[in-house]
């Protein structure tokens, strides 16, 4: 039977995934693919209006499951999107799926970016490599509700040009009103025409102003650390203005397996979105 099991029990079993059909899978550069899913049966209702910053577990049945940030907002197309970098067993299996294949999804999980609280502010979005994935819904949301926000500055970084994600969307981001996109890579190739160096160098150069501004960062822990340090020490931002979304190893997503603890916080239920005044000190301790 094709995804046709009774879903009555699913509502009460948070460990049992919904089924989803892979609608499209496309390359996003080196070892990164965008998976676009159609939720089957009860999944659509369960996910409902998932929010920017939330995450879900994807199951490659027989291989395992792992958590990923949801990479779009529900009103953007008819699919639910995930950008997956091939790193281990589950991500390799997900990369090998073809359109029409069935996979599992559990969620939506975690808190979200408080997009309503950000209204009226300038937004600085800083994405490092695959860390850009959970920031795409933020960008989509701001562009869809453009008049509610001030200037949107996107700083997009990766180790190499081939690791920059969502490249075919840069044009639409740049063309949006009051929106800037800045790109940088650590290791430029011959064709590279944008900045090179770390995202912190780019940030120092752009020097966004802290008045009525919020920053949103996702990337490796060390990048989060140095971005926040620069924002606070050089650019005059308060830690409370700086939001991050954290990655952690997880096995349940519902505050039970214990895996994702960061001191007294559980990334899955207390996060994954935090302001740096909540987790700054903790991140220092666990760098």
């Amino acid at each position: 039977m094709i995804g046709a099991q009774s879903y009555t029990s699913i509502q009460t079993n948070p460990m049992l995934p919904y089924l989803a059909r892979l609608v499209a899978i496309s390359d996003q550069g080196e070892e990164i693919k965008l998976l676009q899913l159609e939720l089957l049966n009860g999944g659509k209702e369960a996910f409902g209006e998932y929010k920017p910053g939330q995450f879900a577990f994807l199951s490659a049945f027989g291989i395992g499951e792992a958590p990923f940030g949801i990479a779009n907002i529900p009103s953007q197309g008819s699919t639910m999107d995930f950008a997956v970098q091939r790193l281990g067993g589950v991500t390799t299996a997900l990369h090998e799926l073809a359109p029409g294949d069935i996979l599992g999804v559990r969620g939506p999980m975690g808190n979200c970016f408080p997009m309503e609280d950000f209204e009226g502010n300038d937004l600085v979005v800083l994405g490092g490599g695959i860390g850009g994935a959970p920031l795409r819904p933020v960008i989509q949301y701001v562009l869809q509700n453009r008049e509610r926000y001030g200037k949107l500055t996107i700083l997009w970084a990766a180790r190499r040009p081939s690791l920059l994600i969502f490249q075919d969307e840069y044009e639409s981001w740049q063309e949006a009103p009051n929106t800037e996109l800045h790109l940088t890579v650590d290791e430029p190739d011959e064709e590279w025409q944008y900045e090179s160096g770390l995202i912190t160098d780019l940030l120092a150069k752009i020097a966004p102003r802290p008045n009525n501004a919020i920053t949103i960062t996702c990337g490796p822990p060390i990048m989060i650390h140095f971005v926040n340090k620069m924002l606070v020490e050089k650019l005059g931002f308060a830690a409370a203005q700086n939001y991050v979304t954290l990655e952690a190893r997880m096995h349940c997503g519902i505050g039970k397996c214990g895996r994702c603890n960061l001191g007294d916080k559980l990334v899955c239920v207390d996060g994954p979105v935090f302001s740096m005044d909540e987790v700054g000190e903790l991140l220092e301790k666990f760098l």
Partner: protein
Amino acid sequence: MKYIQKADLLAWLDITAWEKNLIAPRKIGNQILYQPIENSSQICWDYIRPDLSLKEAFFPPTERLFMMKSNSQQVELVESMPEEEKIIFGVRSCDALGVQMLDELFLENIPPDPYYAKRRENTTLIGMTCSQIGADCFCTQVGGAPDDPRGLDLMFKEVEDGYLLQVLSEKGQEIYESLPKASDYYGKMPDRPRGKPLFIGAPESIDWESHFDDEYWMELSDRCLGCRICAYVCPTCRCFDVRDEPIAGQPGAFERLRSWDSCVRENYRQIAGGHNPRAAKGERLRNRFYCKFFYYPQQYHTSMTVACTGCGRCIEACPVNIDISEIISHLLEVAR
């Protein structure tokens, strides 16, 4: 107080073991374990506490969450809900308290875990108060007691020629009604057992935050083998791992398994890109004690102030004598 004669209790245990799934402390090799029994003669009566805690009755070392039958175009998922009903006899208060702590995580912290919930619902816990305190026991120093009724449905206490009993829940009432008639007890009450304190002071008075960077944790971890037996025997360690495995003999069929895990394991917390926030053994060992005394009570707002029942199993089990009571003692002394 209600009183039942030993012979009557044994008769009831024999019938119950015959009719139902009865679990009780039983000697297996040189270990005493909560195990299924067929008759009352298999019950071990002389024990400090079983060598393994009660957690596996509700949260097995490995369990199937569901089965998958899949090819790429079709997937069928079949849940594996535990249905078995159990009566567990001879439960020590420290173990019942451990179950209470797990309840706060698996049941009260929403959404509830349906596997744990089902086992909990289908299980009756019959306690037996301790008549002696073991050398590594410190329940009274972490908020428990040898006759703590919390988490139990019915509790027995040994007196001359029989047992006093106390009904503690509806499930306990059902058991009570199935027991041979109890009489009133006017005999001598045994003294409450007393043990030597393993440390002086209360662990909740420790300022955990101020000890985070202590060199002590790294020194302590020098001898830690990372074997995780401490987590294995612990009634409140509940970290788990989830993985898929093929089912032997059924091509295309897999099961999703949940297994016990421990934060002391080296790559427990390592993320996909390779970053490990607790790369050093000392950081991992420290996390275990911070979880018990500092993180867990905050994360799950437990009614207990610490996530340790004082059962002392980890002290007994550790092959290199890392002793939780010595750690508490050290931190309390540093503060003085």
